[in-house]
């Protein structure tokens, strides 16, 4: 059993928005409503779900890029939520983030070399010749030519920019990387290149990942464990590939069934689930999934199902598993 690097418990974040004119109403969006999960050392942990389920917010809350309202985050035994500014500074060397949109994640006015050198200067990790060498090392590690340091972001393709974003995250030698949909903006063939790069780094540097994605296929290939989120809550969690082979929660089953497979013979399996994803500002009563659930019972409408641990790392929040 390897050690846990990240433990998140009861993470909560509500956003309040004012809507309407001329009488604005305050609406509370429950982006995260009691999210708990654990990431093991060297593991890639997936957070999957559809848009608005809170998976990206969870990733950012772990880094405290968004301040959570409640909950505890423990990183390598440290209480992240309690850290002061200087503690946070130190923490941010160990946890990094890779973004989805390679066109928005690099400063257009900055040379790549500067973008990569700056974190090491700020944290006093290197200077002078050593700094140049480290920048060169990072570029080589992510598979970019040395000349890249003297160029601007607009000179690169999406896949190359994503490599630069990864190199920037690696510059401070983190132990955990939050990867927020790192390949969803890329073409399939480039997506595979970046996934292979991330996997290589996991092996070589012993990195752990929180891998946020909407693509179950990518998560199955990349992650060792996964949690499925729906409207700000985790509905099922477990190791991969078992969880996608035998999904328990009806929502996981629906997601799995709706995920297209490159095999025309598999299309009959394509499962339809009715209805739209409700708004997180106004989630349904009881179990949030019950209006779309083929197995919904009376009690599902009234009461949110408690979390049940099923052993072997699996857990689910569903009344079907109450006994």
């Amino acid at each position, binding site marked *: 059993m390897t050690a846990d690097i990240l433990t998140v418990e009861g993470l909560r974040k509500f956003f309040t928005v004012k809507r309407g004119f001329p009488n604005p109403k305050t609406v509370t969006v429950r982006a995260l409503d009691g999210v708990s999960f654990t990431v093991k050392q060297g593991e890639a942990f997936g957070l999957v779900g*559809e*848009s608005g389920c809170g998976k990206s917010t969870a990733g950012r809350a772990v880094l405290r890029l968004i301040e959570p309202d409640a909950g505890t985050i423990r990183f390598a035994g440290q209480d992240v939520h309690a850290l002061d500014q200087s503690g946070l500074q130190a923490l941010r060397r160990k946890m990094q983030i890779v973004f989805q949109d390679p066109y928005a994640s690099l400063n257009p006015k900055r040379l790549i070399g500067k973008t990569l050198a700056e974190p090491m200067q700020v944290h006093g990790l290197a200077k002078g010749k050593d700094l140049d060498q480290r920048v060169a090392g990072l570029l080589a590690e992510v598979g970019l030519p040395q000349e890249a340091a003297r160029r601007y972001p607009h000179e690169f*393709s999406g*896949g190359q920019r994503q490599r630069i974003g990864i190199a920037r995250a690696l510059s401070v030698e983190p132990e955990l990387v939050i990867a927020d949909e790192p390949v969803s903006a890329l*073409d*399939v*063939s*480039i*997506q*595979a*290149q970046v*996934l*292979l790069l991330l996997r290589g780094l996991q092996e070589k540097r012993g990195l752990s990942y929180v891998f946020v994605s*909407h*693509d*179950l*296929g*990518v998560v*199955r*290939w*990349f992650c060792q464990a996964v949690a499925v989120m729906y409207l700000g809550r985790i509905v099922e969690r477990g190791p991969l*590939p078992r969880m*996608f082979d035998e999904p328990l929660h009806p929502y996981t089953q*629906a*997601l*799995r*069934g*709706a*995920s*297209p*497979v*490159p*095999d*025309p*013979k*598999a*299309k009959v399996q*394509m*499962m*339809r*689930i*009715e209805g*739209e*994803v409700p708004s997180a500002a106004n989630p349904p009563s009881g179990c949030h999934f019950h209006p779309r659930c083929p197995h919904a019972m009376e009690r599902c409408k009234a009461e949110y199902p408690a979390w049940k641990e099923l052993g072997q790392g699996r857990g689910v929040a569903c009344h079907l598993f109450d006994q």
Partner: protein
Amino acid sequence: MAEAPVLSVQGLTTEFRIGGQWHAAVRDMDFQLARNETLALVGESGCGKSITALSIMGLIPKAAGRVARGRIEFEGRNLPDLDDLEMRKLRGDRIAMIFQEPMTSLNPVLTIGFQVAEVLRYHRDISASEAREKALAILEEVKIPSARQRLDDYPHQFSGGMRQRVMIAMALACQPQVLLADEPTTALDVTIQAQVLVLLAELKQRFGMSMIFISHNLGVVATIADRVAVMYAGEIVETAPVGELFDRPTHPYTEALMRSIPRVDRTSAELFAIPGQVPPISRMPQGCRYAPRCGLKQAICEQQSPPLEPLQGTATHFARCWVRAGGAA
């Protein structure tokens, strides 16, 4: 294919002006679309799949682009020969198109009912109330819940999936012969995507129309297509009935593409990345356009462009490859 095709594209070449020179974004496209058939155009960004659709629709921006060569035959007429007025009459009536972005494809200041009815009133000589009734019927057809109440709602009151349904309703209002669907589910969540795909398949059957479905997602293509054309750098590199293509991907690009997709239904230890990237249209290589990234390339591949040829023993499976399909080597 005994029946005459509904749409026939021959030698279509569409060019764009970059830095004062014309470059082909789509080159020598040939394909036929049979009645009630779904042909999927699949490929990565910049492969020319959307340009092909816009060329058929006559929507290539005149300032920067042109259909340079080729015929697009539809209902006995060659579309590039038609003038603007004739093309406008055709668009939205006989040939309709839906786009990727359901968020921006609807006018935010007009009601849903008005926008659907407008298509009908433009192309059919009917009264406002008649058009409204027909709009309601078609919105029910695309399964908008409580459509009657929602007729006077505005687009922002609809979710992305519902907006895409409205777009589909507008496209189908006049019962077109051909529907061009350009990445219609890419912006949607997977569960909503599944709903829209099933809806499109149902409607296609019911209306007896033909569909060109453009996508970058091989999983979606496997679900909806009858026949697939894989595009790379402005050319069709392989085309076959959907089962045949997925069973026997022959062009090295098709094969690599299939191996680069992580699958949700099975554990694949190996993930294959295609090295390099698609060349920009202003700097296309000589010979086979995929050659610089191809693991099987031989001398001839870099000198001569291979033709799209049938594979041995089939009449429906074509590939553009010297090594795997042609007689060379």
